[in-house]
Structure formats: C-alpha cells, structure tokens
C-alpha cells in the first residue's frame, strides 16, 4: 500500500472507538477530588438579577448549603433543575453560581439582560431551586473552585468547608448515596423517584 493518506479514516475511527469503549464503562460523573475538606474560597460577587446586591462567603455560612454551578446554555443543567427544585422544597438551601458561557462565544459584549431573560424563562419552565444566584461574570470563583464545566455541585457545611463535590447532574440516586448521608438532618431522603 503506497497511499498512507487512505489509512487516516480507519485510524481516526479506531481512536474514537477506544474512547467510546472506555465511556461505556465509566460512571459519567465519577471524579477524584482535590477539593474535599478544603474551605470554600473567598469571593465578592454580584447577584445575577441585581448588580447592586453583593455576596461574599459569609452569605453561605451558618447552614449546610448546596452550591450549584450552572448556565442556561448547559443541557444537563436543564435535566437537573426539576430534581433540585424538589430538594429545595425539602428544605435544602441551594445557591446557584451562574457560569456564563457567552463571554467567549459571542462576538459582542456580554449581554446581562439577555442572560437574565433566559434564566427567568428557564426557571419558570423547569422550577427554581435557588435561593439566589451569584453571577460569576469573570469566572474567578469558578476558577478557584476548579470548575471544568456545568453542572457541578459543591456541598459545604455550616463553617464553609467543602464536604462533597460532583461533576455532572445530581439525580435521586446520587443525592441518596453521596449527599444526603452528609447532611445533619438527612434532607431530601424521602423524595420519590420521578426521574424518567
């Protein structure tokens, strides 16, 4: 065979297959975690809906809080929102960190009003689990947290220590196995399975 170019398709396909094979057997959301038992980073950021309202780490302390990094552009987040809303109804405090994907992608300026519209619309459709949303405009907080994408969730205790971290959506099973046992009063453990 003289023409090695013709081998490119088969080689590319075999490479992809290796990943497809590995993907089949890995839990899509399992990660080793460097964050656990570390304090939640300090920050000073505005509310997503109101740029005059500022939050800092102190606003997260005092009770166990679930921090959810998300965005309207993220498909998986859409799947997660209804379950998170159920959690909120069970009394879990959930705070959103809004990760805007548009800054790199769009050609113009970042349009906060457009983002707000999208957020309002999506939360109206799928349920609003958040007490409030922190707008991580420059992605500093996400960087400090080592966020690789959305959704990601961090559970912190009343003193602000990260006690659980998950990359990917939280569903009923994940919540039962990884998060609920860590909470002092085992919130959300009696949620019915409605994910299908």
């Amino acid at each position, binding site marked *: *065979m003289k023409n090695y170019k013709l081998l490119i398709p088969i080689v590319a396909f075999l490479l992809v297959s290796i*990943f497809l094979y590995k993907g089949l057997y890995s839990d*899509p959301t399992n990660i080793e975690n460097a964050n656990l038992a570390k304090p939640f980073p300090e920050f000073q950021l505005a509310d997503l809906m109101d740029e005059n309202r500022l939050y800092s780490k102190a606003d997260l302390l005092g009770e166990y809080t679930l921090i959810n990094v998300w965005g309207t552009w993220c*498909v998986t987040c859409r799947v997660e929102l209804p379950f998170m809303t159920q959690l909120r109804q069970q009394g879990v405090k959930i705070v959103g960190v809004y990760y805007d994907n548009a800054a790199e992608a769009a050609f113009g300026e970042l349009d906060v009003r457009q983002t707000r519209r999208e957020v309002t619309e999506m939360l109206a459709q799928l349920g609003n689990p958040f007490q409030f949303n922190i707008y991580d405009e420059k992605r500093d907080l996400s960087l400090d947290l080592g966020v690789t994408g959305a*959704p990601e969730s961090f559970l912190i205790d009343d003193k602000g220590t990260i006690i659980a971290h998950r990359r990917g959506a939280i569903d009923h099973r994940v919540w039962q196995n990884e998060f609920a046992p860590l909470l002092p009063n085992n919130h959300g453990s009696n949620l019915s399975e409605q994910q299908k």
Partner: protein
Amino acid sequence: MLPEIGHFSLLISLVFSVCLAIFPLIGAQKKIVEFVALAKPLVYANFTLLSVAFFCLSWAFYHNDFSVTYVAMNSNSDLPWYYRLSAVWGAHEGSLLLWVWILSLWTAGVAFFSSSLDDDDVARVLAVMGFIAIGFLAFVIFTSNPFERTFPMFPIDGRDLNPLLQDVGLIIHPPMLYMGYVGFSVAFAFAVAALIGGKLDATWARWSRPWTLSAWGFLTAGITLGSWWAYYELGWGGWWFWDPVENASFMPWLAGTALIHSLAVTEKRGAFKSWTVLLAISAFSLSLLGTFLVRSGILVSVHAFASDPTRGLFILVYLLIVIGGALTLYAWRADKVVSTHRYKLFSREVLLFVNNVLLVAALVVVLLGTLLPLVHKEIGLGSISIGAPFFDSVSSIWFIPFIIALSIGPFVRWKQDRFSRIKTKLFVGAVPAAIVAITCYLMLQINTFFSLLGVVLATWLAALVVYELITSGKKNPLPLSHWGMSLGHLGFAALVIGIAITKVASVDKSVRISPGQSVTVNNYEFKFTAVEQFEGPNYSAYHALFDVSNGSDSFSLKAEKRYYKMHSNVMTEAGIDPGLWRDIYISLGEQLDGDAWAVTANVKPFVRWIWLGGVLMVLGSIMCILDKRYRKILSWRAQRQPSEAGPVESVSANKVIEQKVKFE
C-alpha cells in the same frame, strides 16, 4: 400466540440474513450463478418475515396485550388507538425493530429496482445489506427482544407511553428519521460492493444517486419534523438545541449533503472517486454512530434514554466490524483509483469541492463538540458540557463561505470557466439583497452584523437561483432534477433567513399573570381571559385562554398544561398562532399562589421559514428522484444490455448533451 410468531420470524430472518451475507458474495466472486440467484429471494423473504414481526408487535399494542412486557411498559388501554400504534417505536426495543424492518424495506427496494444492473453487482450490494441486517437482528433478538412475555403474572393495564411522545409529530418523526439513517445503507452497500468488486468507476455512483437522494430527503424531513415538534411541544420556543441526540441526526445529514453533491461530480465528471466512496461510508457510519450514542446512554442528553453497558458494548463491537471493516477495505482498495479527470481552479468541480470541504468541516466540528465531553472525561480532565453557544458561534462564521460557494456554483461551467463571464450575473442578486437588508434593518430592528449578513447573503442566493432558472430555462426545458436542485437551494436560503431573523428579532416576556390581566410584548397585547379544567383520555389539563391583539389583528390562543396520571408527569402544549411572517407563542408555566400563573409570551418573526426551508429541500429531493434519467436506472423491467458491456456504457440522454458541451 402472535408475539411468538413475531419472535420466530425474527429468528428465521436472522438465519436468512446470514445466508444473504455469505452465499451471494461468494457467488459473485467465484462466478457461481446458483449462489448469486439466491440473493433476491432471500431479500424478499426477509422483508416478509420482518413485516410479519412488525405486524405482530403492532397487533399486540392495538389489542392491549399487556402480557408482552414491552407493550405493558409503553402503552395503556386509555391511550387512543393511533398512539397505541405509534407506541410500537416509542421505546428502545420497538424502535430497533422498526430500524431492521426499514432496512429490509430498503434492501427489498434495491432488489426490486435493479433489473438493469449486472447480477453480480446486485448480489454484492444485497450481501452487504444482509451483513448489516445480521448485526441489528442479533441485537434485537439477544439484547432487546420486544416480544418478551410477562408470564405468569401479567398486569391488568400498561404503564402508558411517555407523554412527550404522545403527539402527532412523534408518530411520524422516528420513521422518517430512520428511513433517512437506514437509507444511507444503500449508498454504503454500493460503495462497499464497488470496493469488493474492484469496480471503482463512476457506475456505482450513478446507481446509488437516486437512493442517496431519497435517503437524504427522508432524513431532512425527519430532522425538520423533530425541530418543529420540539418547538411546540417542549414549551420553551426553541427549535434546535445542539443536543447530542440532535447532533447524532445532524452529522449523517451533513455527510449526506456532501455525498449527494460529490456523487454528482463522480457520476458526471469521473472526479472525486475515492472521496465519494469515503463519504458514502461515512454517511452510514455516522448514522450507526448516532444510533450507538443514543442507545448506549453514553452521553447525557435531554433525550435521556435508558443506559445499559451490555447493549452499548454490543453496538460498539458491531460498529467496529461494519465501519472498521469498510474503512479497512477502503484503505486497501481505494489506492487503485486514479482520477484522470483534470479541471482548472475556477470550475464547478472546485466550487463543489469547496462545498464538500465546508460540509465536512462542519461535520467534524459537530462530531468533536459531541464527543469532546466524552474524550475530556476519559483522559481525566473531568466532565464538561459543550453548549449551544459554541455551535452557534462556529456556524455563524461557517455559513458565509458556504453560501457564497453555493450561490456561484450553478453558474460556473464544469472543467474550466472565467470569472469575468459570470461576474455581471452575480450583481443581479445584489439589488434585492440590498432592499431586503434595508427593510430588515428598518422594520425588524435587526442590527447585528451576522444576522444582517445572513439575510443579505441568503436573499442574494435566492435571487441568483431564480435568475439562473429563468435564464437557463429559456434555452431549453429544464429537467426535473434541475428544478429539484434549485428548490433545494431556495430551501437553504429560506432556512438561513429564518434563523438569522428569529435569532435576533424574537421577543419574549416571562410574567406572573392572573385572569383579567394583560401583558404587552412587541405591540401585541396578550389578555389572559380564563383558565379552564379539561379531561383528556389519559390526562387532565388546564387550558389558559388568551385574547391577543395588535390593533389590526386579533385572535385567541389556548396554552395548555397536561398532567399525565400514569407517569405523574406534567407536559406543556404551547398556544401558537402561526404565520409566515411571525409566530405568536404562549406557554403556560407553573401555577403560582392564588389564581396567578407563570406565563411566557413570545413574538417570533420568521421562525416558520426554518421549517419552510426543510420542506423545500425535501420537495427538491423528490423532484430530483422523479427525473426521467433515473426512471431508466430504477426500472424493474429487465432491459438488460449484454453483460460484457454492462450498464457502465449506457449513457443517458443528459450525459450525451453534457459530453457535447465538454468537447466544445
């Protein structure tokens, strides 16, 4: 009893498929006439058996036979009869049965319409298709049997069909999509058969063109329907989400679009031979990859199907055999292909090549965007989700060169041309484009550079297509395929205009509103008149009634929220007033305290043009297939030429004209 007959038919069909994959192929290679003659009877038998199996499953659904597990899981006696029938392909097992049945349908079609082809060539093609069938039949029988019984205890009533799927759009969307996916297997089989037989001339391209065009038409229809369905059923007014499952259908479409253009070059000019073979293999491979991605649950998606590693592994091994085998064959055989055809830099060949490169580039971007989350995770970087903004920003640059090449292409001659010859023609489109651009800017307040550019280029394209039709139609009557091509290109222009305008000019407002109150969006006043309770056959619902007016125009709309008892699932049905120039769209959100509701009201200009574009492309592909040059190819009456000369030399009337042009 019937489910057992269905199951038994599947088993026999598997045996027949194995025979079909082996004997005709040996027969064609070793010149054993008896083996070759087996091919068509086996194909027809397979089609009959699978039709029986499909009928048995449909019967079980129609008669509420809940002793069949699959029926019990996906149907319910309250369900109207048409949803009971469409529930056949409402979940994994049944949709795979539909897949193999459609494959047997296409195979039977090839067998039926190929009397004027050489027997050995047909035998190879059918054998390849039989080989494809083996994998899917084994998959159905061993991992996803739809005929499994629930004995000894069977439920009184079923679990009901997923409410999302209880919709007219979803009755026809999957069969259309599968007709497209599986239809590419014909081009694949022709290409692989050509590689096996070592006959890599333009013949296989000519034979597979009508098949590829029809598969592409079905796929386009399927994608358009899916987009339209998502728009009115999911309740957030979007029409494309770059969701992995959508990407899985978009990738074969891109490859297929490249393929129908590249086939034209290979057939008419004998160029791009090896490239066309690769595209034919890719289009079907991507269909299979799409099936794998959807059915293995490997990617997280809003479509969220059941995830099962065994099933995924089965399909992966099958992919390795079919795709890996075809690509290995390609690497081994395609280096014998020499394209002797020469062409200059400014020629239709080159413009079609640019079109192909751009389509493949788009394909690679979508493929990477879809698979990157997977790769990213597997090399230890953690999970990520690549969202619509990524794809949107890439495609907003991509369309510029694409649409320019598309506009100029039909004017340029094969082999070589001079730009000075066509440049005055190109200005013809500039006038309407400028008028439309100014109108859009003033009337619709479109002020984003990329949207305006989209509208301008698309109008330019449309004007040139019409101009080209008029000028070339003057000299001699145009063949249907020419009309088809123009219609397809007009469809693309409509699609671009729809996307460009609706992306920027849509206005929406999410409000908390009680009956009696009203909200104004973009000069339209939405008055919330009342909420009514309503009982459907298997759901209960709230109807929210609105009176909408903007002075000159007034009408009422009904947005709906349904609660499905069996699934304890809530669905929205948007209230839509459709129009060519704008859609008014209301979706009902949560019920808030008191009598207030969360409601989203949208005004979406030109959104319908997106699906109009899809419809035009489908009509275009139908016209191309109906062209009389294919009537000869697809004849079922044997008009066989002496097999030595074969169909290779049979030159259609069009071809003769083209060759005259060529030698001028």
